[in-house]
């Protein structure tokens, strides 16, 4: 491992599906992809952690409800407390919410159907491991694929999330405009992703790892991975 190459850990839970894709994306963008196993208590010295998409434990009971009890989650919590960058994608986002590392919750899509589609998302803040290098207002094309991605939170929590500018991404139109027709799952305030107040933990429903290789879709995920790698490197 060259000193300049950040190690990006990707956790595999039983039922994780996009773990290989996240590892591939991290490598493609110039990082070292490091597979992590849910039952281990060892983060293998990684500089950043990704909780990947999928259906951990089948998403039975509630999405992410069972995964958050995995042994490795204690290590990830500690890693996050030390300021380490933690990113949850789709199911990973749901796990972070269940684990209380992020506010709010994700419920069945408004239309009650799984949706796989390329959508536009607007960057809302540069205070997150995924958006550090980015300018708020920037629009990225990234696919979503989920059945339970509707972000929700009790009114006072939602007010706090907005008040403290914890929203990192919103579903939007091609020009960045917000409108219900672009709100692919009916999320509160079109929220597609949020961060913690410290700014080192972030989760999003869209799949940047599926938007880094032009041969298989869009490239809207490239700047996010670039940001994550830089963010991790700065803390190595």
């Amino acid at each position: 491992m060259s000193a300049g190459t950040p190690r990006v850990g990707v956790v595999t839970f039983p039922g994780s599906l996009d773990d290989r894709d996240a590892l591939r994306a991290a490598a493609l963008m110039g990082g070292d992809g490091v597979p992590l196993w849910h039952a281990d208590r060892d983060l293998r010295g990684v500089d950043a952690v990704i909780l990947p998409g999928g259906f951990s434990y089948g998403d039975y009971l509630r999405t992410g409800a069972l995964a958050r009890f995995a042994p490795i989650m204690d290590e990830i919590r500690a890693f996050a407390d030390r300021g380490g960058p933690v990113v949850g994608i789709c199911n990973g986002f749901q796990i972070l919410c269940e684990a209380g590392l992020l506010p709010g919750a994700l419920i069945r899509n408004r239309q009650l159907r799984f949706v796989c589609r390329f959508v536009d998302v607007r960057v809302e803040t540069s205070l997150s491991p995924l958006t550090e290098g980015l300018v708020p207002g920037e629009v990225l094309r990234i696919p979503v694929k989920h059945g339970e991605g509707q972000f929700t939170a009790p009114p006072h929590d939602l007010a706090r999330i907005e008040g403290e500018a914890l929203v990192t991404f919103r579903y939007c139109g091609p020009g960045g405009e917000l409108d219900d027709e672009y709100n692919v799952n009916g999320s509160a305030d079109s929220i597609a992703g949020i961060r913690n107040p410290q700014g080192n933990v972030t989760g999003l429903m869209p799949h940047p790892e599926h938007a880094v290789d032009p041969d298989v879709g869009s490239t809207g995920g490239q700047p996010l991975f670039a940001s994550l790698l830089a963010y991790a490197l700065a803390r190595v």
Partner: protein
Amino acid sequence: SAHGSAGPGMKYRFRVVVSLKPGLLDPQGKAIEGSLPAMGWTNASNVRVGKYVELVVDAETEAAAVSQVDEMARRLLSNPVIESYRIVASAPDLRFEDVP
């Protein structure tokens, strides 16, 4: 419809429980049960997960309300092929909190 025309009657609250027929595999229950020991609970078993529906029906008599909810549970809330349902009727305007 007949139901629709049931004038301004009483409001009856209902709870319907829909669960997989016994003998059928319950993947959710199985997955929960499987993960309990790791959380330190080794003494729980027979976990089954079902659906729970609350609703309010406007009808002239409780009997009318019950028979309508029964039809709804059979035709809409459950799939008789794999699921069975149970109705928990409650007296007019009784607050749910009062029913176990």
